[in-house]
């Protein structure tokens, strides 16, 4: 076997595309010719080195992206205290409105707890979802006068709002799993599920 043929087989070996007949030829050539064995050893080392080199570059890149992401989250948290302060009042007002609506006109679907006009954004919230806490995943809604939502959830749901993940007005959210909200009436994501993210504390 000449060197060019061996190098071709070596490439195929590294890509995992050798046929069994080619594999036999390849293995025999390595045994018969120390130069071919050296080429093989070198290629295996280079494969390892190139992999480490690229992983280190990728790790640096995603470390920067994660830092950016975390900085954006911190900025968002600093920007929201006013919203957070008014939430108890908004919730109280909504409950009063809800009670009023139930008294005057109870909904035909008993699972439909709440319908309102609001805009919804979602922000990962640190929280415990492991172990027994899995069932108590929380999503909290923030109010906005330009969108609609409803939920059939019978526990606490919290959707944290950020400026990053707006859902268009008139979207309806339906809780369909312990950490999944289904979007309804969304022009782009009809029928698709949106997983509500939860991050660890």
């Amino acid at each position, binding site marked *: 076997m000449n060197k060019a043929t061996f190098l071709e087989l070596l490439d195929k070996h*590294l890509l995992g595309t050798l046929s069994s007949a080619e594999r036999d030829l390849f293995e025999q050539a390595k045994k018969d010719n120390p130069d071919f064995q050296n080429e093989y050893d070198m290629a295996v080392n280079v494969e390892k*080195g190139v992999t480490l080199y690229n992983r280190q570059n*990728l790790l640096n890149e995603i*470390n920067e992206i994660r830092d950016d992401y975390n900085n954006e989250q911190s900025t968002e948290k600093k920007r929201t205290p006013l919203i957070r302060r008014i939430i108890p009042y908004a919730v109280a007002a909504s409950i009063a409105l809800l009670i009023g609506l139930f008294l005057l006109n109870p909904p035909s679907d008993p699972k439909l707890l709440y319908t309102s006009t609001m805009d919804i954004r979602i922000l*990962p919230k640190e929280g415990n979802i*492991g*172990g027994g806490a899995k069932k108590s995943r929380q999503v909290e809604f923030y109010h906005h006068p330009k969108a609609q939502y409803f939920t059939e959830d019978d526990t606490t749901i919290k959707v944290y709002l950020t400026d990053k993940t707006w859902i268009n007005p008139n979207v309806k959210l339906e809780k369909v799993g312990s950490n999944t909200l289904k979007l309804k009436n969304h022009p782009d994501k009809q029928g698709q599920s949106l997983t509500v993210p939860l991050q660890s*504390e």
Partner: protein
Amino acid sequence: MIKSIAPYNDSQLIDGIKRRDAEAFKQLYRFHTGAFKAMILNNGGTQTDADEIEQLVIIHLYEKVITGDFKLTAKLSTYMYSVARNMWLKRASKKNLTLSSDDDTLNLPEISEEIEIQIDPKDDEEEILVKSIANLGDTCKQILTKFYYEKKNMRTISNELPDLTEDNLRKRKYKCMQQLKKIFEQKKQHE
């Protein structure tokens, strides 16, 4: 001014990862890593463990995607959780920790392979080799990366590097290897 970025669906995320689109990676952090980081923390892991495994899972996913070895058979978040669990099981056993069975109900896809993502060179030779690769010219780095890391064949690489025919590419790759060998030997002598 509020910026509006809709969440990517799984296939948009895969495309974004392939392109190394920063927004796709941010959405992984936003939507897809929280659950497994919590699993690690709730099973004796530290924040450092959770942060490290988060990055390793993303690197693993990237490599699966670019080598064409990734098929979306489950939700992306479920797949990532399984990979993280696999990595954490290995790390936890070294720390004599046992993983609680509370996530058995999640119907995680089976990952039979043992996933190990080595980042740091394990000895001086590997370290010199990585430094030598960094010293290569851009074209050589590109060729070697596409072939050895992205597992692309010569035809695909020559389509991506239109200045090089398939035949020239083969010759160029061989030259790059020789150049690398030379740099490596020089560095080895000096270090």
